[in-house]
């Protein structure tokens, strides 16, 4: 699957408090309203721009994107704002699983090679980010097989429903899953 969009750069250590601030906890059961505040404390311009729907934005972070609270609303709001995937140098582990569980890829890549506003084309099956503005090609970190199979079903709920249970080939054999980002 290939997606295209414009890079919206954020810095290192973007916490879920910055993505989905606690002061909007009263909107947690009202995500269409909450999404107007997504990433507000990191960049107040992001939500209004993303929600116009004129342009697809790729959220581009730095180190440990999504750190802190487990609140899954953070990943859901980014997806709800029309963002197809998130790129960062690294992800906090709860946020990482949350993204794949709701069918939104989170890919590791050297985001120093991406500037705010760059046009990107991401082929995540091949593990490639093409920077169309700079005419460069970046290789993404490997998506662990378990996460890839969840993603291919559109999320973990769909994955389990299709199989009638939580089962992974990797878990039944007790074999090494490798040193992926998990």
């Amino acid at each position, binding site marked *: 699957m290939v997606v295209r969009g414009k890079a919206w750069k954020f810095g290192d*250590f973007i*916490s879920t*408090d*910055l993505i989905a*601030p*606690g*002061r909007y*906890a*009263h*909107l*947690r*059961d*009202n995500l269409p309203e909450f999404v107007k505040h997504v990433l507000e*404390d990191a960049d107040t311009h992001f939500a209004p721009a993303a929600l116009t729907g004129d342009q697809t934005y790729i959220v581009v972070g730095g*180190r*440990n994107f999504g*750190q*802190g*609270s*487990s*609140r*899954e*609303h953070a*990943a*859901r709001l980014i997806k709800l704002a029309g963002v197809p995937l998130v790129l960062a140098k*690294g*992800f*906090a*582990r*709860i*946020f990482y*699983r*949350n993204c794949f*569980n*709701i069918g939104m890829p989170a890919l590791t890549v050297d985001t120093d090679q991406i500037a705010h506003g760059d046009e990107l084309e991401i082929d995540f099956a091949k593990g490639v980010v093409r920077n169309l503005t700079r005419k460069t090609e970046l290789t993404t970190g490997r998506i*662990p097989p*378990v996460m890839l199979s969840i993603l291919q079903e559109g*999320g*973990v*709920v769909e994955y*389990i*429903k299709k199989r009638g*249970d*939580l*089962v*992974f080939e*990797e*878990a039944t054999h*007790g*074999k*090494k*899953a*490798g*040193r992926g*980002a*998990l």
Partner: protein
Amino acid sequence: MRVGMTLAEKILADKLGREVRAGEIVICPVDLALVQDGTGTLTFDVIRQLMGKDTLKHPDRAMIVLDHLGPPGRPEYAAMHKRLRDFVKATGCLLADVGEGISHVLVSERYVKPGDVVVGADSHTNTAAGMAAFATGMGSTDTAVAMALGKQWFRVPETIRFELRGPLPVGVSSKDIILSIIGTIGEDGAVYKAMEFGGETIRHLSMDARFTITSMAQECGAKLGLFPSDEETRKWMRTHGREKEWKALAADADSTTERAIEVDCSRLEPLMAVPHTPGNIKRAIEVEQEGVKVDQVFLGTCTNGRLEDLKAAAQILKGRRIAKGTRMLVYPGSRWVYHQALEEGIIQILEEAGAVIGHAACGPCPGMQFGLLSDGEVCVATQNRNFKGRMGNPNSFLYLASPWTAAATAVEGRIVDPRRFLS
């Protein structure tokens, strides 16, 4: 020949009845899954999507804790609480109502035992790993899966071993140990890893002190931070009427860890995390020299809201008054902590010093309704994170510290090193 296992490997291996190794994917039965009021409704939406109805595999192993939003300060919070109470009626799961305490404090007092696997839709679920449980935070969807199916998948984490050496100097607490570690390895220094704490110093750390460390393992990205189960764990479970559930549990001496880091505790000083990240560490004495006036001091949370923490603050506040222009809020971690503090006269000391005593709950930490800050205001809190906006206002400034440092700061009305108050 049997090869040695880390504590994380051992707990999962015992659950599965076979050897497991770091890097493996396992599907494991879950002994306890919890949600709090800020993450519960989404979790139960997902259960309905997954199962077509409100249902749980083991209602007696699923728990809702109303610790973040109660008593509701907004009608939306009341509506969320109502949905959660309705879910309890439909499924028969456990409920800890408003005022019973913070989920992580409660589950360690009442439910978790060494060797358990615990998940929760709250990032500080790993606090319970202080009693040698595989306890880790997850999102609402993952927690929904665990509650609905009674199991969850995990990647067995690699382990970073922390050897704590030397006695703690006066005025230095376990909060300063974990702040020092986060400052050293960074907020992503242990991402996806298990931290395992050992060394001679841990024998002298109470369970209250250990939970401070395991709570903040989350702040360097770890899946969990584990302590072995030993005589301290046993003593603590006895206090809570559960000694029969205790067992000893420790890593094998020949286990394979990714790396080992030695912490010389005898050289530590009172530390603080300064705005706006928990890895931004300075010595309290340095911050004191900057002359930081403080509007609010907050004592509590899953990190430092236990009896020993309230006692530490009382040690400094006894016979003293909180400075004019500074307010101090205390939220005990659980009803048990509150009762003990009342019986031992701790609450009276704090109250007479001018502190406001709240109910057993998260209080101001998540920035949702209590003790919110105004633009430009400064708060010193015993909590675990100080991200921009954490206490409800992105234009305020949060410093993280131990109960001693927080109490000394309340007396002076400005950030100070607490050692002058302790001999």
